[in-house]
């Protein structure tokens, strides 16, 4: 972590990494603190343009973080160029926030971690809470001085799982968390007759995965649940332990980034990977094993 102080909010001190979250009140007081850059990442790419936290910059999961051609993230050159454009240095404290209970903010944070950016924090409650509290929003896009961000290798091995690794993980009966809705998990189709589907040819889940919809980790206001509640769900009810080798997945990796964040930073699990190929890869792949039903 950099020399930017941590948010002393009591709730955060319970978590394994107390500095991984900031509150809306803390952020409001630190908007002009040098060394901090606030990043908005949303599902709806226009939301930033409608108004955003003063001084924040936008990072779009698709148009900024994804490689424009292959299904992968940008490489070191692309990431360094993006950081330079956004005025982010290697030692900048980056505070992420976004819509949908921070799905995409957690996803962007995860991608920043793939590149080894150290000081990343999430705004508890995200855009929803900031807006609900009537805090200041602006349409003014800040002009930030370009930085020279170092070319940093993307290290996928610790935080990201590929399809081949998931296949091995299934064979070894490793722990897996499916964070999609119960209907997606069971394989029920929610589309109407004659309409195009979302693009997967099979419904269901990866055999052996435990269903823990991402939403269970969040309160209705978008904030994370307290430590005791989270432990009761993931450790008590699902039997996961902090040193388990865990892979989380959803449809394209955004909701599972939310759960990856919970397991890693709030519960202190040491070995959690996000399978960003997720169901949109697994459910389309030929001859991969699939389970259906609620269990």
């Amino acid at each position: 972590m950099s020399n930017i102080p941590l948010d002393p909010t009591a709730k955060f001190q319970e978590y394994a990494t107390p500095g991984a979250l900031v509150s809306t009140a803390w952020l409001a007081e630190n908007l002009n603190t040098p060394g901090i850059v606030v990043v908005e990442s949303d599902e709806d790419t226009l939301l930033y343009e409608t108004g955003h936290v003063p001084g924040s910059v936008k990072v779009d999961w698709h148009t900024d973080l994804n490689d424009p051609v292959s299904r992968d993230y940008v490489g070191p050159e692309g990431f360094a160029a993006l950081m330079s454009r956004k005025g982010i240095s290697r030692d900048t404290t980056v505070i992420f926030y976004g819509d949908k209970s921070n799905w995409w903010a957690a996803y962007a944070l995860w991608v920043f971690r793939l590149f080894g950016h150290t000081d990343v924090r999430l705004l508890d409650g995200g855009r929803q809470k900031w807006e609900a509290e009537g805090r200041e929003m602006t349409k003014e896009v800040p002009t930030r001085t370009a930085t020279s961000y170092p070319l940093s290798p993307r290290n996928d091995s610790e935080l990201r799982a590929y399809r081949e690794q998931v296949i091995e993980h299934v064979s070894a009966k490793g722990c897996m968390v499916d964070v999609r809705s119960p209907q997606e998990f069971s394989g029920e189709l929610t589309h109407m007759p004659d309409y195009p589907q979302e693009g997967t040819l099979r419904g269901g889940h990866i055999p052996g995965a435990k269903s823990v919809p991402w939403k269970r980790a969040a309160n209705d206001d978008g904030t994370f649940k307290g430590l005791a509640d989270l432990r009761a769900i993931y450790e008590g009810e699902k039997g996961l332990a902090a040193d388990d080798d865990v892979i989380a997945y959803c449809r394209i990796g955004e909701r599972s980034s939310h759960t990856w964040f919970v397991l890693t930073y709030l519960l202190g699990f040491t070995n959690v990977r996000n399978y960003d190929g997720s169901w949109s890869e697994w459910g389309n792949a030929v001859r991969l094993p699939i389970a259906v039903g609620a269990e």
Partner: protein
Amino acid sequence: MSETPAAQLPPGLAAVAADFADTPREMRLELLLEYADRLQPLPQKYAAQIDLMERVQECQSPLYAIAEVSNDTVQIHATAPQESPTTRAFASIMQLGLNGLTAEEVLAVSASAPLQLGITDLVSPLRMRGATGLLARIQRQVRAAVRP
């Protein structure tokens, strides 16, 4: 990624495509937001009873739409939350592009018309599913209205 020429779009959608083509790249999201702001308010009967409309399942955000056909003229009504401006823009563009056309004219619109507007790269192909889903549902409703 190249976009298909907009030659076969109906005039209203062709005007939208021209608008984006004539706008500098860095200004196009602003333009899309202007379209979002032009979404027409719902008539009272739909505002009071949203389930009279059809949910567009391809959109992750709750978009509801209905196409009315009266005197062989199509009118589209749609609503989506303020926090889903891209979805609102899609709905608004469909209103501007299709309202006032005859049923046959609406049914003749290519299913890929949303991909010809010059906004696919701007918002990403994945996000365009909502727009193509909306058009498909509008056309299905129009077809049901004129060929019961």
